[in-house]
């Protein structure tokens, strides 16, 4: 958007009377007359069948504004967000999104269409979603991926519900790592509650699953074991196959939480024995967006009929051409109602489109390089911070992806606050622990961050 467009201009178009009308309703007063005449009504009010007792005669006190006024107002409001460099992660990440993603996804054909209830006229979007599913299948190695859930947390909730449904015998517990974001856990608990499951944690030691403790906690009544790699602390798990085997022994599903960039590099989930993979795929496709996400959800073949959400499959047209269509809809709410696999209807389809365009733009080569950088940058930044007296990084003696925890001699709250004063935002994760996330979008300021930390720890 260029400054040229910010000319005082109200943009309503000239064909309306006194601007009491919506700028997005095209009917002229003459047309309204003609339509009322055709209907046989004297006024629009006559068409409403709202009893007096519940009619609303008041005002919301929301003043209509011009486009220019609204844009300016919101710019001013958002301008109150402090200008800081974020070294934040822990589940929401900022990678560079190439311009081609915006220009293609914002095409109004994609943006303003809806769920492909008439597939013959929606082949384009259906193919894009099929390709998104396919990319997730390649990244996870699992057989089936749906074309989106809301975010990682709700995808995790749905995974637990699925795990309970597929089990032959009933169970009641879900085990999650103690490093799981508390917000993610809370969402899981709400989904679990409806499925009559309780959520318990198992400890990590030095940023990796404490296998012995997990073995103690698991039992016949566990329907799902969930692990994250990378964990919320940025550590890469080293014994995922063992966790999978342990879950399998107890007839629990093994669900792995990750994201497409990490998946491009780390052990393939299918290879380590994951039954389900969830996570946030919007790490590609969306830059920082205040937590809006894209839930990825992939499962092995045996769980297919229990999968929540929309699935796009292929078929043939009457004239023998390949076509794409929503399929296996009998799992879904509009047919199964209360016996549906989930209530999800509107999902994050347009975000999935953006993610697919982003993955296509990167290719295997670009995506792998990006992933490798996530390892390198985390290691290098940790090493540089470790050189500072009063900082020990990484706190966990493990390999890291994108981010790491650093132990500080001064209380983390003070360190974080003083770094913020100097223009940098980091996480406080413990009394003496901060967490730093580095991607290509903030790597240019790592030098300044290091200098600032040095100042703060003096």
């Amino acid at each position: 958007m260029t400054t040229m467009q910010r000319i005082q201009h109200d943009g309503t178009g000239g064909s309306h009377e006194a601007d009491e009308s919506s700028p997005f309703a095209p009917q002229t007063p003459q047309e309204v007359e003609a339509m009322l005449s055709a209907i046989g009504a004297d006024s629009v009010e006559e068409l409403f069948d709202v009893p007096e007792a519940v009619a609303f005669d008041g005002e919301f006190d929301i003043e209509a504004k011009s486009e220019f006024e609204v844009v300016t107002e919101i710019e001013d409001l958002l301008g109150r967000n402090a200008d800081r460099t974020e070294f934040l992660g822990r589940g929401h990440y900022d990678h560079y999104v190439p311009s081609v993603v915006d220009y293609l996804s914002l095409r109004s054909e994609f943006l303003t269409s809806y769920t492909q209830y008439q597939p013959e006229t929606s082949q384009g979007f259906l193919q894009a979603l099929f390709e998104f599913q396919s990319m997730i299948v390649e990244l996870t190695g699992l057989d089936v991926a749906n074309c989106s859930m809301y975010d990682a947390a709700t995808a995790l909730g749905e995974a637990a519900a699925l795990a309970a449904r597929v089990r032959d015998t009933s169970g009641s517990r879900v085990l999650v790592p103690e490093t799981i974001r508390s917000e993610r856990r809370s969402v899981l608990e709400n989904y679990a509650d409806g499925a009559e499951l309780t959520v318990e944690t198992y400890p990590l030691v030095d940023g990796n699953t404490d296998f012995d403790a997990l073995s103690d906690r698991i039992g016949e009544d566990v329907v799902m074991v969930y692990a994250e790699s990378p964990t919320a602390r940025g550590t890469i798990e080293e014994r995922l196959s063992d966790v999978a085997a342990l879950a399998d022994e107890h007839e629990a599903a093994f669900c792995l939480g990750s994201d497409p960039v990490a998946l491009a590099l780390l052990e393939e989930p299918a290879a380590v024995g994951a039954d389900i993979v969830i996570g946030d795929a919007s790490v590609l496709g969306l830059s920082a967006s205040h937590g809006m996400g894209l839930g990825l959800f992939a499962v092995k073949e045996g769980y297919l009929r229990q999968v929540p959400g929309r699935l796009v499959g292929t078929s043939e047209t009457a004239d023998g051409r390949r076509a794409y269509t929503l399929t296996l809809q009998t799992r879904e709410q509009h047919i199964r109602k209360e016996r549906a696999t989930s209530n999800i209807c509107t999902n994050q389809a347009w975000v999935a489109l953006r993610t697919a365009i982003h993955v296509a733009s990167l290719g295997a080569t670009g995506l792998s390089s990006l992933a490798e950088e996530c390892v390198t940058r985390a290691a290098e930044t940790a090493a540089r911070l470790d050189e500072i007296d009063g900082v020990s990084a990484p706190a966990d003696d493990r390999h890291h992806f994108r981010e790491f925890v650093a132990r500080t001699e001064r209380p983390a709250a003070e360190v974080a606050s003083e770094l913020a004063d100097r223009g940098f935002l980091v996480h406080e994760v413990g009394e003496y622990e901060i967490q730093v996330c580095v991607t290509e979008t903030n790597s240019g300021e790592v030098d300044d961050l290091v200098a600032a930390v040095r100042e703060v720890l003096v």
Partner: protein
Amino acid sequence: MTYETPDELRYTDSHEWIDDRGDARRIGITDFAQDELGDVVFVELPAEGESLESGAACAVVESIKAVSDIYTPVSGTVTATNDAVLDQPELLNTDPYGEGWLFEIDGQVPEDALDADEYREQIE
């Protein structure tokens, strides 16, 4: 539209048919039922050896647009299942009384099962 309703079979008002084959009763869905459902895409059968009470939901038939529970009209133990329909669910559409059968069960035909005429009346 007239639906095939073989005279020698018995029926339920939830559109299952019962064929008394001597050592077991064979169960399936009627021509009317398959027509209502549309193209069948998936079938779930009870397990052999499973013990069922009459009226229990024991199988599921899915079409593109609907899911139907199948209720066993006969009590007893399931003695056989027609696994062919797992791979070829369309058999329920093309041959609902023949190759599209669902399972066999050892209990007796209930007294209140409808005969062909009574069922035909119902579906009109």
